[in-house]
């Protein structure tokens, strides 16, 4: 990707988890790093997230989940991304994600898993690399 167009990132909170500190901190960090960020707010269904990604024509979908429901929520989102032909988006996730679940998430098509404790610079660098910025 090149030119003046900013890379667009959707930060989404799927399911019922209300812990939004991490998602918002990452959103602020991405804006500081020069990305355009759209934040969904809390309690979005997988379909609402897919539609937000489509309607805003984002390059990256970032999920924040701290409730432990990441596998069912990501499986449901995968179906929605397929339904709306959005599987080409870079898909990353952050939150309380146990190591043993990383492989299953990567299998679903998630490219980056950022556990609690991940550094903002790491996340920014990863998204830059994946979007070829």
């Amino acid at each position, binding site marked *: 990707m090149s030119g003046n167009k900013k890379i667009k990132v959707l*930060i989404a909170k799927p*399911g*019922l988890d209300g812990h*939004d500190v991490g998602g918002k*901190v990452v959103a602020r960090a991405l804006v500081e790093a020069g990305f355009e960020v759209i934040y969904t*707010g*809390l309690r979005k269904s997988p379909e609402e997230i897919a539609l937000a990604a489509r309607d805003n024509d984002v390059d990256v979908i970032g999920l924040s989940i701290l409730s432990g429901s990441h596998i069912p929520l990501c499986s*449901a989102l995968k179906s929605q991304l397929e339904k709306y032909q959005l599987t080409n988006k870079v898909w990353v996730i952050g939150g309380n994600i146990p190591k043993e679940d990383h492989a299953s998430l990567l299998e679903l098509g998630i490219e980056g898993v950022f556990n609690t*404790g991940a550094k*903002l610079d790491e996340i920014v660098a990863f998204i830059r690399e994946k979007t070829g910025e």
Partner: protein
Amino acid sequence: MNKQVKVDVRWNESGIEIKPLYTADDVAASRIDEPGISDGVGLPGEYPFTRGIHDLMYRKRPWTMRQYTGFGNAEDTNARFKYLIETGNTGLNVAFDLPTQCGLDSDDPMAAGEVGRVGMAIDTLKDMEIAFDGIDIENVTVSLTINGSAAIMIAMYLAVAEKRGFDLKNLRGTCQNDILKEYVGRGTWIYPVDASVRLVADTMEYCAREAPLYSPVSVCGYHIRESGATPVEEMAYGFCIARAYFDEVLKRGLDIDEFAYRMSFNFNIFGQLFEQICKFRAGRRLWAKIVRHEYSAKNPKSMWLRMIAGGGGSGLTIEQPENNIVRGAYYALISALSGAQTVALCCYDEAYTIPSEKAQRISTRTMQILIEEMGLTDTVDPLAGSHYVETLTNQMEAEMVRVMEEVDAEGGILKLISEGKIQARVSKRAHEHQKRLEDGSFRKVGVNCFETGQEDHAVEMHPYKREDADKQVARLQAVKTERDNDAVTAALASLRQAAEGSDNMMPAIMGAVKAYASVGEINAVLTDVFGKYNEPVMF
């Protein structure tokens, strides 16, 4: 002190400069005068309660140990409750799953994958009956950590007590029920701000009349702090929120002394030791002054800052998790030196999972060691009179007053929360903190200093059992078949009538839960009348 040595400048997290030495001059210069209190501090058990709300404090009775727990369904949670009581817990602190917290039944499509995940699933009174089966709720006080659907959970809890023959006039216990802080952090809001505050006031008014020893609200600076606020802001915003509930109840014609004495608070304990202790001493004194001067309360109990000081989740780290056991011990020490009525400690594995029995036991033992071995219950407010502690207490109070005045000048806490302004302020602080953590200017052991390179440790994960969720849905369906559905329809119609008018909704909610209406059914009526909260989406 050697004048040749240049000393670095340090601030605490609240932005107050910390000097290398304090003397009586600092205490005098920072003193906040209060009529009738010669030193501005007073004695324990006496206004303005700087040194504690009781005269003998822990010498008479140690703090209540109340670990936070709940997972799966009511049977699983009941078993863990009994384990905690066996290990010496003197109270219970109940965790509910997210569907329950958001007012959804376990068979709701939005509940998929979330049933019983972060707490216990409750759909109907049946579940609440099972959860407390065999537990002596007269002597083990129960705290319900729930907000959006708190009115329903209070009603269920009171209904269980009634069914078991307890006189509600003697029933003690607490519900979190602080919806305003949910908009700032934690996020389990359901209805718009006005309707939510009305519901909170309904529970306060109802309990004042029917269950006068029950605490229907525990205002949580705790989660505002977890979301990024400084310790001073935690207290100041918490007090602004408590005032908002008071103001709403006063509109109903109650006298301040009829309900203020049951107000409870929940504050956080992570951070620097002296800043935390002085935060609590200052907060206790400021709250007493507010209730006495602004609200003209006469009963000293109305002025008490009764609190659970606990948690410390944001202070714990996923790196080198065993270090969290040590942090937990210091946090418990902070609580003990601060005069908390109740203490709950986050467990060392809590950054990973629902705590194991072993981790819960270590947290309980941590508190028991302080009580039994360390002499922490012998003397009231042992740090009083320290030049540093008294100066910092004064300075923290002055800062809390300043932040509260700022909120009032900008239109008040209801307006600022409705517009998302407190949320934005707190989230900005969280981002600043993260940057300081990453550039190393805020030191965190195992995170940005003293790393071992192998920070991930094997923590035993709490298993999520899909069968529990299926069992929960089956029980909900069975209850719906067995109950008198005409009675449910009639109870829900009464609730709708109360909600559409201006009557207190609690009697109708009590009627609905006793007819075994589900959380989702009750919430559907209220959402239909009030609508849903429209979150100001910003970061």
